[in-house]
């Protein structure tokens, strides 16, 4: 395999990520490589911000990151509605935002796609790989389920989906829909960000290829759009994750709301909820 920094004449479009090499049984793809760089960058940004605030040497950039962190933290608390749970959800939720936004923006760099390793591009946007977005969507939905089980109990959580159809047919039907929705949510969560980011990268490649020398004028417009889309998609993923976690938690209506049908076992609602 040889390393090349010469751009291809036509855009390279591949839905699947390219495997660069193996470490034992592990596959290392180009999206993982950029994901790793993005992760290291996200860690560095957050860690240096924390350090700067700890030492009292926070500059404008640190304040900007802290503002973003605080806004996301507040949103999490507001959506979850319980500060105690929100503080436990914050690490996952905020990491998703920083990971996706930084990776989406890194994916727009000209070096992504143009440097090749053998036949394949050396780097690829992390969110432009379904293996990454599906993995993160599964983590989000499983986290939501774990929180729901923790607060409602295993049977209480199952009670959201499976209701005796002879006692309450409407809720039974609703439960089935809700059960199916958990899978469609996972798929939608993964496909939404993948579609946007992958589509954006393809769009940039195609526009750059079609416009030729005029691409210096045409591409900045699309780059601006993709910068915006990259940030918005990261935020949407974050919002949906905390919304799904919040949906699984018992609310007011679970504690005082609809009376269960006769013979139905009521959902276990923890006292602190």
């Amino acid at each position, binding site marked *: 395999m040889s390393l090349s920094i010469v751009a291809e004449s036509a855009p390279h479009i*591949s*839905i*699947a*990520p390219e495997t660069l090499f193996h470490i034992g*049984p*592990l*596959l290392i*793809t180009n999206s*993982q490589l950029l*994901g*790793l760089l993005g*992760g290291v960058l996200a*860690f560095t940004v*957050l*860690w240096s*911000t*924390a*350090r700067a*605030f*700890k030492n009292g040497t926070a500059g404008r950039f640190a304040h900007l990151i*802290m503002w973003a*962190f*605080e806004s996301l*933290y507040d949103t999490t608390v507001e959506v979850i509605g319980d500060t105690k749970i929100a*503080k436990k959800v*914050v*690490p*996952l939720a*905020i*990491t998703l935002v920083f*990971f996706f936004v930084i990776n989406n923006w890194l994916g727009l760099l000209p070096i992504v796609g143009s440097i090749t390793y053998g036949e394949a591009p050396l780097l690829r946007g992390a969110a432009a*790989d*379904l*293996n*990454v977005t*599906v*993995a*993160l969507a*599964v*983590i989000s939905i499983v986290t939501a389920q774990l929180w729901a089980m923790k607060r409602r109990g295993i049977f209480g959580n199952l009670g959201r989906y499976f209701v005796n159809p002879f006692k309450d047919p409407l809720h039974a039907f609703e439960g089935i829909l809700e059960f199916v929705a958990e899978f469609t949510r996972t798929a939608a969560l993964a496909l939404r960000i993948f579609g946007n980011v992958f589509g954006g990268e393809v769009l940039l490649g195609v526009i750059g290829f079609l416009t030729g020398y005029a691409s210096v004028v045409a591409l900045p417009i699309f780059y601006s759009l993709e910068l915006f889309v990259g940030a918005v998609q990261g935020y949407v993923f974050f919002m949906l994750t905390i919304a799904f976690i919040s949906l699984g938690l018992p609310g007011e209506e679970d504690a005082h709301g609809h009376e269960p049908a006769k013979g139905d076992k009521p959902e276990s609602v923890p006292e602190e909820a």
Partner: protein
Amino acid sequence: MYHFVTAAVTHENAEHSVGLFQALGLNGTLLIENTLAFLVFVAVLAKFVYPALMKAVDARREAIETGLREAKESHKAAEKAQSQVAEVLEAARKDADDIIARSHQEATLMVAEAEEKAKSRAEQIVADARQQLDNDVRKAREALKRDTVELVALATERVIGEKLDDKKDAALVKKALAGEKA
């Protein structure tokens, strides 16, 4: 036959699913790798970064809340001081009004007293003057009478040609009076 068809369909579906997953680039190994890598990443951040950031956020909020609370207390204290100042000013204004009213009253009294004194003094002066005048008039009359008597006596001495003493004078007077009566 039925089993054969079902198996064939299932096999075809499975192949189709694998084909779809392959077309989308989905790979079980990569999914597991990515999941674990991201969970490790979250765990590292949760252990080493987020506690410090949350602490900074909490400290900043606490500082803001403390500032707000202190500002509120200062505002209350200022309001209290303002009301106290207003009270003191009101009391001072009242005292000033009382002092002015009392001064006016005292001034009026003093003027009235002075007027009274002046009036009585003037009356005294007038009375004294009148007394003095009466005395002077009486003295002048007595002096005039005495002079007149002396002149009359002197004139009578010249007329009668002898020195008159009191006895003679009295006899002449009686005689004159008797002649007058007749």
